[in-house]
Structure formats: structure tokens, C-alpha cells
């Protein structure tokens, strides 16, 4: 029996539900030294901003229990160099390219997405509203009104599907997801990192020069799953699940909770070939359990009532 791993999000066909998460796979160049990017359902590139950014001074990362903190500070080459030098590299791979976009103001999202609208290889954009590392960015992630407006403005300029990436650092993520849906988002992705901190008890210094950072990795998986589950009950648009995914079993949990696809982040650092292994193990699970398509898992959670 042939197993179909493909999923469809907002009209875009993914050969499998496995994407790599923004900020954890650069612009694809380095991972391509490990496996062909054509094996990915999609790649979400590092957040780009209007101007290049160097990011925060080191230390930018800290190891935590079953996870890590980062405050990279949106280091990126800027939209110009991205379009000129980074996007062409991705052309040779048969995978969906999702360009992640970050900005301090709505206008910046619009500006970048206007530029991307002319790039055929920018299959989709993902709007990073939630990066906890830039003060200015926080507003959109935590405000339903701003999030809705940002999505609506971007939709006006970018022809392809738009994914809104949500922050977990809010009281009610479903409310923000609904606002994005109202704004015209074609999908939501969640979660970005949780605000966290670690302290060096010898120097009395935070372990990150940014003082706080974003927590990611297996530690946050339960939080991400609960949020995907909550948002699935609140919106009709597809959900891309993110947070602590390291194995095919993790992916299945997300799909059952309602994710139509997933992104792998921090796991790439520890096991850079995670997507390849997951695709293999996902097939095994499906065939063992007599499913012929991964779509048969989406939203099939049997909640207790």
C-alpha cells in the first residue's frame, strides 16, 4: 500500500507535513550539506526585516532542561540581499518556500511583502508577530486588533497565501488566531517561543545579553499542543503546529490536535536530519496502523467530555 504524506494548506501542496521552522534552518544553505531540501514539505526561512540586522551580542543562547533559550535578535541579511542572494539558492529544490517576515511596525511587513510579491519562489509568507526578542514587535503579537490589521494590510500586497505566526505569551491565543482569520490569514502557525530566562550564579548575570530570551525545544511541547488544540476549536483556517517536535510521535500528537502541518525548530540543532527521520517514521506509523494518508490523522483527537 502506498502511503500518502502530502497535505494541502491554502491551496499549496506540500509533499509531506514537515517544514523546518524559521530561525532554525537559516536560508537552507547549511542544511543542504546534510540532506536534500527536496525531502522537506517546506522550508520557512529566517525572519527577514527591511534592513539587515546583526543581532544581539553573544551569548545569544543558553541550554536549559530539555530545551534552550535564544535571543538571536533577528539577525538577518535584510530583504534586498535575501531576494538577491538567498532566494535563488532555494530554486533548485522541490519544496515549498515559506518566507518568514518580521517588522517593528505594520508598514514594515507591508514593505517586505510587497517586495516578495514579485518573487515567484516565495510560495507563502509567514508573519512573525511574536518574536519576543524585539520590543517593538510585541505589540502585534499580543493585540488582536493589531494582528488583524497587519494581516489585512499584507493580504492587500502579497498575492500568495499568508500564514500568521502566533506568540504563546498571551492570555488567549484563540482570540488572536480568530483576529488573524478575520484579517484574511490563510493559516496560522503556532507557537513561537515562550519568554524565559536563565542566570549564571557565579557572575550574577543573565545568561543572555538580551537578559530574557525565547524558550524552545521538547520542554515546551505540551504548551504548544494545548494551544494548537485550543486554536483548532476556534478557527476554520489550517493550523501549522510548532513547538518541541523531535520525533514522528510528536508530529502525530500535533496532527491529532488539529495541525495540518508542522515545523521543526530546535530539534534541528540537536539532530539536524530530524525531518528525514520523521518522514520515515511517520510512514511506518501510518502503514502499521493501516492509514493510507497522513490527512486521516488531522484533528482526530478523541477528547474526554
Amino acid at each position, binding site marked *: 500500500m502506498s502511503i500518502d504524506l502530502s497535505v494541502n494548506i491554502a491551496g499549496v501542496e506540500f509533499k509531506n507535513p514537515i517544514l523546518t521552522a524559521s530561525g532554525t534552518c537559516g536560508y537552507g544553505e*547549511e542544511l543542504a550539506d546534510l540532506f536534500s531540501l527536496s525531502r522537506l514539505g517546506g522550508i520557512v526561512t529566517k525572519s527577514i526585516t527591511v534592513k539587515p540586522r546583526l543581532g544581539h551580542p*553573544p551569548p545569544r543562547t543558553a*541550554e536549559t532542561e530539555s*530545551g534552550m533559550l535564544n535571543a*538571536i535578535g533577528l539577525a538577518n541579511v535584510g530583504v534586498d540581499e535575501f531576494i538577491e542572494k538567498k532566494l535563488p539558492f532555494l530554486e533548485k529544490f522541490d519544496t515549498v518556500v515559506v518566507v518568514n517576515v518580521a517588522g517593528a511596525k505594520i508598514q514594515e511587513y507591508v514593505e517586505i511583502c510587497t517586495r516578495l510579491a514579485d518573487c515567484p519562489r516565495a510560495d507563502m509568507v509567514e508573519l512573525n508577530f511574536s518574536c519576543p526578542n524585539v520590543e517593538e514587535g510585541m505589540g502585534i503579537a499580543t493585540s488582536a486588533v493589531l494582528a488583524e490589521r497587519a494581516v489585512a494590510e499584507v493580504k492587500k500586497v502579497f498575492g500568495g497565501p499568508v500564514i500568521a505566526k502566533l506568540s504563546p505569551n498571551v492570555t488567549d491565543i484563540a482570540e488572536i488566531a480568530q483576529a488573524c482569520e478575520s484579517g484574511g490569514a490563510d493559516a496560522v502557525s503556532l507557537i513561537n517561543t515562550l519568554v524565559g530566562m536563565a542566570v549564571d550564579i557565579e557572575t550574577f548575570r543573565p545568561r543572555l545579553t538580551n537578559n530574557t530570551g525565547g524558550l524552545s525545544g521538547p520542554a515546551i511541547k505540551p504548551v504548544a499542543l494545548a494551544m494548537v488544540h485550543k486554536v483548532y476549536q476556534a478557527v476554520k483556517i489550517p493550523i501549522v503546529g510548532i513547538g518541541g517536535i523531535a520525533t514522528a510521535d510528536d508530529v502525530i500528537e500535533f496532527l491529532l490536535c488539529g495541525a495540518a502541518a508542522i515545523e521543526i525548530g530546535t530539534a534541528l540543532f540537536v539532530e539536524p536530519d530530524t525531518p528525514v527521520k520523521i518522514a520515515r517514521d511517520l510512514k511506518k506509523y501510518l502503514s502499521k496502523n493501516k492509514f493510507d494518508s497522513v490527512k486521516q490523522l488531522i484533528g482526530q483527537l478523541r477528547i474526554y467530555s
Partner: protein
Amino acid sequence: MSRIVVEDVSITKISDLKRGYFRLNIAPFSKAAKVKPGQFVHVQIPGCGVYFRRAFSIYNFNAADGSIEILFKVVGRGTACLAKCRRGDRLGIVGPLGNTFRFPLKKETPVLIAGGVGFPPMYLLAVHMIEKGFEGERIVFLYGGNTKDDLVDISRIRKLGVELILTTMDGSYGQKGLITEPLKRIIDDRCGKVRLYACGPEGMLQAVDTLACDNDVPGQMSLEAPMPCGVGICLGCVRPLREGGYTRVCRDGPVYNFGEVLL
């Protein structure tokens, strides 16, 4: 074919060199034949609860049987756990990672400066030079530590027939004092004809970097940084460049020209 592989390997031998230093042989690593001096592997240490892999320079490799060797010092949770591994245990490794050293010109005297656990890549570089036709006696090898206990595997480096100068801070072995003392003399003596290679603790590298820049001596050093990913995708291991911006030690390095990185 992938340039970098993610593989499960076995520990074929673990040698306790005492005083906290261990030597580990692992195989089979499919890229053993491709290893260049200065490169490292990123090791997943089983069962110690640390989340990231740990980076270790490749100390030696055997292209024939696909084995590689690392030398490490116990400094924390990960290395303590690695030291408890036994023959037959499995390790996950990613590699080979990082860049390599520039080869010296024929007329130059290569001076290799190893401090503490900076020894492994310097040793491999010496081996490589000799293999590529450099006579052992033309290579100067400075090896320094705080005390006698930090100078491990000396017999091995002696076998290469290099001009070996050992130093310890407390004088318990070799010349007493900083490794930069004999280095200064060498630079003065063979002015204009040496190329330096250094790996070791931050303080030592700063001193060597300054010496090299002040005296206009060419050469390179291998740096360290905490490395979440080791393959260039996390931007966590960055260090500031003199010309501005940051460099990823894991991928753009770990080997840099003197004067390139702000130490």
C-alpha cells in the same frame, strides 16, 4: 552526497589518561577519510540529560578503518558523562564540521602552539604537515599547561620528531611560565620566516593573537564558543569580527586568521 553526516557510532576504546583527561576512539565514521585538521565533531552524549551536543576537535583519524579519535577533559555535566562511557556504547556524531588551517609555505617554519585541550587539533595538524612532506624537525611544537597534569599524551607528539617545547605555569614540567615566552623568542629568532598555529584557552589565544599582529607574523588560531547546533543554522556561536558583524565559529570557523576576530 552529503558533506556532513549524522551517524551513530560505537566507542571502540576509551582510555583514562588520568587527571580528568580521556581519549576516545569511535568508529565507523563514514567521513573519516575526509577529515581535515582543525575540524571537529558534534557529539550526542547519551544519558546525562544535557540537551545540546558537545563539540570535540578531531584528534586523529584512520581512513582505513573509518575510526576517529578525540581527547577531552572533564569540565562539566556532559564531559563527566562521556567519561563514564564504556567500550561498545553508542554515540551520535555529526561531522566533520568547521574549516581547516592554511598550509604553510615551503620556506616557513610552522610553529604550533597548543594549550591544554587545544592540543588535539594541533597534534593532528602536525601529523598532516608531516604526511604532506614537511620534515618533523622543521616543525616547532609548543605545548603548555598549568601544571604537569595538563600535558597529556606527550609521548605521542614526541614520536613525530618535532621540535617540542613544553611549558607549565608552575614549573612542574618543562619550562616554567607562559607558553608565549618561548614563542616570543622564536618569533624574534626566526623573524619573518615563521607561521603560527594556535589552539588553547582564551587567554593564551589573546596573547598569541596580539603577538602575531604586533609582529606581523602570519598564521591562524582555532577558537571555541558554546555551540547549540555546530552546523551554522542557529547563530548561537557567534563572535564579533574586527571589521564589524559576527562570525559563526562552528561554520565560518573555528579556524581564523590572527587579527580577524575580536577576542
